[in-house]
């Protein structure tokens, strides 16, 4: 039977639940991400102290910590399936688009979980000024969406290749750089009291473009796994 909308939705939901269950049992990404975030924030805080007057540095530091904390897991989204030989199972139960959407939703949940811990710790450790919560949350939300979509797409593309680790860094750099630039700029602007509309528009447009490209590409991936 062709995949109907509802059965595709159920496949996405099933894959999201499976990803959550697997992550909860193995703590493959969560522990490493949280350890990285806490260690890097604590060591930076000890080294340079509180930086409440350097919002430009704070904005960059926040996104660097978030990016590297999350990337170790996001980069392996599909590699785990390939190296664990479970890709065949996945492809036999769902369409590539359903698989990728399920993985993307999990990556977004993962990013949000990391941010829930990292952002408050960052504000405390670094002595950051009180943020304007509305703009900051909007930047974090759209930045995470774009970051998750970009990282998931790159991870899907490189999953079948040799030298995946090196390739992920090389391919993801140009894809993720505009997201980082806009997110850092928006985060800095919300601290300085400037409007963040331009950054939000850029992040939203980039996220939509990445999601559209993903939906077009996913069905053509993995045909020769």
């Amino acid at each position, binding site marked *: *039977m*062709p*995949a*109907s909308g*509802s*059965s595709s939705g*159920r*496949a996405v*939901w*099933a*894959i999201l*639940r*499976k990803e959550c*269950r*697997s992550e909860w*049992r*193995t703590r493959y990404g969560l522990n490493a991400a949280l350890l990285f975030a806490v260690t890097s924030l604590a060591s930076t805080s000890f080294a340079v102290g509180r930086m409440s007057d350097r919002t430009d540095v704070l904005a960059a530091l926040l996104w660097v910590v978030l990016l590297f904390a999350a990337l170790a897991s996001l980069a392996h989204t599909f590699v785990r399936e390939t190296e*664990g*030989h*479970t890709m*065949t*199972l996945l*492809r*036999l*139960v*769902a*369409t*590539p688009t*359903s698989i990728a959407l399920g993985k993307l939703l999990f990556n977004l949940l993962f990013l949000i979980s990391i941010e829930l811990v990292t952002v408050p710790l960052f504000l405390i450790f670094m002595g950051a000024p009180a943020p304007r919560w509305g703009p900051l949350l909007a930047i974090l939300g759209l930045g995470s969406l774009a970051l998750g979509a970009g990282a998931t797409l790159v991870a899907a593309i490189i999953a079948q290749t040799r030298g995946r680790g090196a390739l992920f860094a090389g391919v993801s750099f140009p894809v993720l750089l505009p997201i980082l630039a806009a997110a850092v700029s928006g985060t800095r602007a919300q601290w300085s009291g400037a409007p963040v509309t331009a950054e939000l528009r850029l992040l939203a447009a980039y996220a939509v473009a990445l999601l559209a490209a993903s939906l077009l590409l996913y*069905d053509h991936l993995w*045909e*020769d*796994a």
Partner: protein
Amino acid sequence: MSAALGDEGVTVEARALTHRYGHRAVFERLSFSFRGPGIVAVRGPNGSGKSTLLRLLAGLLRPSSGESALTAGGRTIPPRERHRWIGYAAPDLAFYPELTALENLSFAAEARGLSSPAKRGRERLRKVGLEGRENERADALSSGMAQRLRLAFALLDDPPLLLLDEPGSHLDDEGRRSLASWIGDEGSRRLVMIATNDEREGALAGQRVELGSRGVGDPA
């Protein structure tokens, strides 16, 4: 909605099917047509392309040239939708080690949009002799039990076409006897294609595909 038995028969066709790994052709211009129900043995020496042929038919691989076709209910099923019409069990099919046997099957059933995934998973595990092992993690199962889990997975959707690659591998004598009886039963209800060089499994087949040099045809 599943592609349940009781629909019109399923037909599997290969039309000048060729597959190459690099410059090496595994098989060239392979053509056949089989209509279910029945049992077809795919035979040939190691490296002759038995597993590759089943992966092509399952839509997991794209052929170098030629095409394979699956027709069910009078409709040609596109490769990307074939997973909903076939049951596939092969040595390259692995399960999530951190999930239990039942969780793996429930996940697969849920992702396919089947009703009562846990109940269905339990029934299939019982059918392959894994009752009582539902809550064991997949990585704790012996290789024989993992093979039974693959067979349970293949039956999950009650599909009109079963593609079984070396289905008796890792099974003990009792398991192989049960498997032969089970394949015989299934072959009366659906089309079963088995890639095997096992004489007991091969003897069940009414038709066969010989890969290598002898072409395609009925058993001699």
